[in-house]
């Protein structure tokens, strides 16, 4: 995955640095929110979930769509989707990282986020949120790395066999989101 991202011309890198600048500004804005509290968002006692959660739910769907794009190629052997799979993987990883970050910035006490894992609560949907999204991210990174290895190594048989196995696992994990 990483190898694909660092090959590009001058225009590509200018664009990347511009986007990194936008990320930096966002990070500084988050630091302000961290210091002042969530009151800066304009949410209230009655409307306690706002754009953060709205964006999170939208991006979760986008991340799941990464599966849709990868499925035809691997499961149904429809090779014409081959050029879309890498893009799908990048999109899925970016979207799932943004999902988790949206939840993180929405928390009033983000430094205590590991309490969700230290004190697991199976009857809470947010607990499953964390587990499933982390699992999805992990699997996507694993598979995404292999997609590039796969393409670069021109159908080297042992890699191809283990790849299809991983795609099945990824679908099982992400099926609630379909």
């Amino acid at each position, binding site marked *: 995955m990483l190898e694909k991202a660092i090959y590009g011309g001058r225009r590509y890198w200018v664009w990347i640095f511009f986007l990194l600048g936008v990320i930096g500004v966002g990070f500084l804005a988050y630091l302000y929110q961290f210091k002042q509290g*969530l009151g800066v968002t304009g949410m209230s006692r009655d409307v306690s979930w706002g754009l953060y959660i709205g964006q999170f739910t939208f991006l979760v769907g986008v991340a799941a769509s990464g599966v849709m794009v990868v499925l035809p190629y691997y499961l149904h052997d429809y090779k014409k989707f081959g050029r879309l799979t890498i893009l799908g993987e990048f999109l899925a990883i970016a979207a799932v990282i943004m999902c988790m970050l949206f939840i993180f910035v929405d928390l009033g006490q983000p430094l205590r986020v590991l309490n*969700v894992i230290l004190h697991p*609560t199976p009857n809470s*949907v947010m607990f499953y949120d964390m587990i499933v999204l982390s699992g999805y991210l992990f699997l996507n990174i694993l598979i995404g790395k292999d997609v590039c290895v796969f393409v670069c190594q021109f159908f080297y048989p*042992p890699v191809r066999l283990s790849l299809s196995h991983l795609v099945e696992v990824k679908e099982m994990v992400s099926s609630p989101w379909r």
Partner: protein
Amino acid sequence: MSMDRRDFLKIAGISSLVGVGGFSAVNSIGNRLEASQIKKNPEALTATHWAMVVDMKQFRTKEDYQVCIDACHREHNVPQIEDNPKHEIKWMWTDTYEHVFPGNESEYLAEKIKEMPFLVLCNHCENPPCVRVCPTQATFKRESDGIVMMDMHRCIGCRFCMAGCPYGARSFNYVNPRPYLDEENENPEFPTRMKGVVEKCTFCYERLAKGLEPACVEAAKENAQKNGTTPGLIFGCLDDPNSEVRKILSERFSIRRKPELGTGPSVYYVL
């Protein structure tokens, strides 16, 4: 490295399991305080199911309500945030019939009832939706006495409980509450909260542990004594057939908020 991916994943998984398991085992064996050293306060008020009855007949003037609300907010250092009503924090407040019992109002309902300010607080439900959705069990139903408690130390501020509560009983600290506290009137025996945690009425668990009644109940009693009436808030155990709450519920017609949701609130309103 000639190891293939499957072996790497197996080794990584097993070593992290062993690592985490070993760490928690060592931690639990280590220097722990003995459980036999902890006791409940013998003076504590106990019950198996605390409940409250709000006798609306006894609330005649605005002062009758305000006394209870002020006692609660003073006892628990609840900040008065006036400059931005979006951030207000209230553990107990009043609202109209239309909002407290939605679905029941009609055009020809008595004017008196339409305008009557009903005292509302956390209902300490028997089947609380907030407890069900909390991802860290920071809000939990105490099995011994049925109070829906709030652990401010563990709350991550996700506000799922606020979304889950059908009665809007919970408040979130959107800003640091300390600047909004009145220094002279604060209660030095109870902590405040910091920004980023959710808070609500807890049936004064800390007062019950010392053998005192909840602050609002006590304030209602004092107010009634002053005016020569009967107190408007009755507090007691629902499972005890001889308690005051059972007595008043058996004699008069009572309603609860939104019973169709199946939450089983423990706060009854008697008109």
